[in-house]
């Protein structure tokens, strides 16, 4: 069952080759065998998952089966799931049992999918290595000494190691695409506003977007079919007709144009990554695609701009963790002020505290114009670059990550070096655009992906291009242990 696609699992359930209970039990056993080493899950609740599987089997026996009915899906621990412990990777929420379902979890429940458990993540999704989690670092299944990327490192490691067929994830600056790249998976960050943020614990509200991490573009399309839906409880949810993302997976891309941004393909690009991307281009050429050099002149400023906007929004969003209505409260304090100070000192990890402090600084009296407003203006320039580029091409090719996975502990002492992990992914979050990372090959036995960026709401086109690449390449078929 390990290497079956979501569609093959669906066929198996439909043909009664196996039941949802058997399938779910198989993955729960995989978790029992592997999670001690990999640490991809924070919470597993066998009873709840099996109960859901029994209900799915009943639906299937009555022929009420849709694409994901009966299929176990791991949920990133940023999504509230009713009566499930929902921690966001933080000590602050170690005792928090969500009182309601997030829209994403609700949609999966309604589709008949099984909640397989809650995956590990960087604390409050702040990190690129999954080392900031209160629940310990996640290990990369390709080599346990290396990071799986972050912040959706648990989701990526769970799928890469065969503990889950697919998983949900979120992407504020690259948190779906960078772990997908580092774990040989396909991960899609949709257009801002396509997937509801209701019940998804907020980090930077103008950037956060949920999406799938899976083995292939086809699996991502099936996941997105469930996840993308208008939600009036998220005021930034975009009202539009529901699309079927599997419909155009095989459409011809003959004569289409992929833009090559000269600012990404410069001397700073790692030589090995460059060779890998050139091979991706050759593959697309064989599919009839043409290339055009484009320019994203302001993309170099994405990182400084992001590290103003994201911490500013985070400092506001995370002010709710004060030890009053839910979550952690310090045990020793003499008054209310000290209760706040100690609760937040003890409940948050170092990286989260750093970002709250940076956000507080850039929003504080006298600095607003110089930092926050300035960053918002450059954000406009970055978004305008993309708008202009898309008049010349269909999609844009970019690296997903600057390198393959690095060793656990290598970058923990240098936050700025860690931030550079997202140098190729952040600009699309600032612009609100959709982008995918898909397997492109291996460097020294460690996987790396390529990125395709699309115009607003062009997820179908991105998935089509990626699916066709995967129909003529094998990289996505490799599992840990098979390449060495």
């Amino acid at each position, binding site marked *: 069952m390990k290497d079956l696609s979501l569609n093959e699992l669906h066929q198996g359930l439909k043909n009664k080759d196996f039941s949802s209970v058997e399938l779910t039990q198989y993955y729960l056993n995989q978790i029992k065998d592997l999670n001690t080493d990999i640490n991809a899950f924070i919470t597993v609740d066998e009873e709840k998952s099996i109960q859901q599987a029994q209900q799915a089997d009943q639906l299937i026996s009555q022929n009420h089966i849709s694409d994901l009915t009966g299929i176990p899906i791991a949920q990133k621990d940023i999504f509230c799931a009713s009566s499930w412990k929902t921690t966001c990777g933080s000590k602050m929420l170690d005792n928090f*049992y969500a*009182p309601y379902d997030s829209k994403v979890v609700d949609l999966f429940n309604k589709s008949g999918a099984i909640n397989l458990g809650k995956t590990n993540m960087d604390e409050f999704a702040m990190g690129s290595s999954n080392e900031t989690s209160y629940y310990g670092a996640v290990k990369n299944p390709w080599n346990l000494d290396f990071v799986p990327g972050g912040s959706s490192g648990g989701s990526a490691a769970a799928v890469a190691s065969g503990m889950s067929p697919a998983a949900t994830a979120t992407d504020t600056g690259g948190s779906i695409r960078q772990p997908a790249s580092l774990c040989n998976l396909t991960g899609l960050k949709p*257009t*801002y*506003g396509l997937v509801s943020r209701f019940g998804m614990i907020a980090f930077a509200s*103008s950037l956060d977007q949920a999406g799938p991490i899976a083995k292939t573009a086809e699996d991502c399309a099936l996941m997105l079919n469930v996840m993308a839906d208008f939600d*009036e409880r998220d*005021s*930034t*949810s*975009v*009202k539009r007709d529901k699309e079927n993302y599997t419909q155009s997976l095989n459409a011809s891309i003959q004569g289409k144009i992929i833009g090559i941004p000269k600012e990404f393909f410069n001397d700073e690009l790692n030589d090995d990554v460059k060779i890998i991307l050139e091979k991706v281009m050759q593959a697309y050429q064989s599919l009839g695609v043409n290339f055009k050099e484009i320019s994203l002149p*302001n993309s170099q*400023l994405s*990182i*400084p701009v992001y*590290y*103003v906007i994201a911490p500013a929004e985070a400092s506001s969003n995370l*002010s709710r963790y*004060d*030890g*009053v*209505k*839910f*979550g*952690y*409260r310090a045990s020793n*304090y003499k*008054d*209310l*002020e000290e*209760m*706040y*100070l*100690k609760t*937040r*000192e003890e409940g948050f990890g170092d990286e989260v*505290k*750093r970002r*709250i*402090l*940076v956000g*507080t*600084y850039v929003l*504080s009296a006298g600095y607003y114009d110089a930092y926050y*407003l*300035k960053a*918002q*203006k*450059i954000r*406009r*320039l970055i*978004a305008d670059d993309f708008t202009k580029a898309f008049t010349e091409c269909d999609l844009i090719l970019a690296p997903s990550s600057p390198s393959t996975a690095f060793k656990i502990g290598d970058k923990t002492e*240098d*936050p*700025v070096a860690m*931030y550079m992990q997202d140098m190729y992914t952040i600009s699309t979050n600032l*612009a*609100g655009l959709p982008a995918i990372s898909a397997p492109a090959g291996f460097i020294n036995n460690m996987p790396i992906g390529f990125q395709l960026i699309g115009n*607003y709401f062009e997820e179908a086109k991105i998935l089509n291009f990626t699916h066709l690449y995967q129909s003529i390449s094998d990289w996505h078929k490799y599992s840990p242990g098979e390449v060495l």
Partner: protein
Amino acid sequence: MALTDKDIKKLSHLAKINISSDDELIVLKKLDGIMKLIDTMQKIDTTDVQPMSHALDIYQTLRDDVVTESNQKEKFLQLGPESNEDYFIVPRVVE
């Protein structure tokens, strides 16, 4: 502009995060590194550029103000570190 230990004390107060005196210097050093990274954006001329506060230039969706969930007071009070009947309990603030 380099940050000072006075800035760190002020930020600690504003963000309501206690920073022990042992950690102050480390926090200062790391924050200073981040601010240096951020300051690289200052070289860009942004005269006449409209700030972009939201990824999509759309109006916020509004919905009717109707009750959709029944009273869930007990469920939510249970989540609090300390509660009593109808209230969350905090240290005394009025003498």
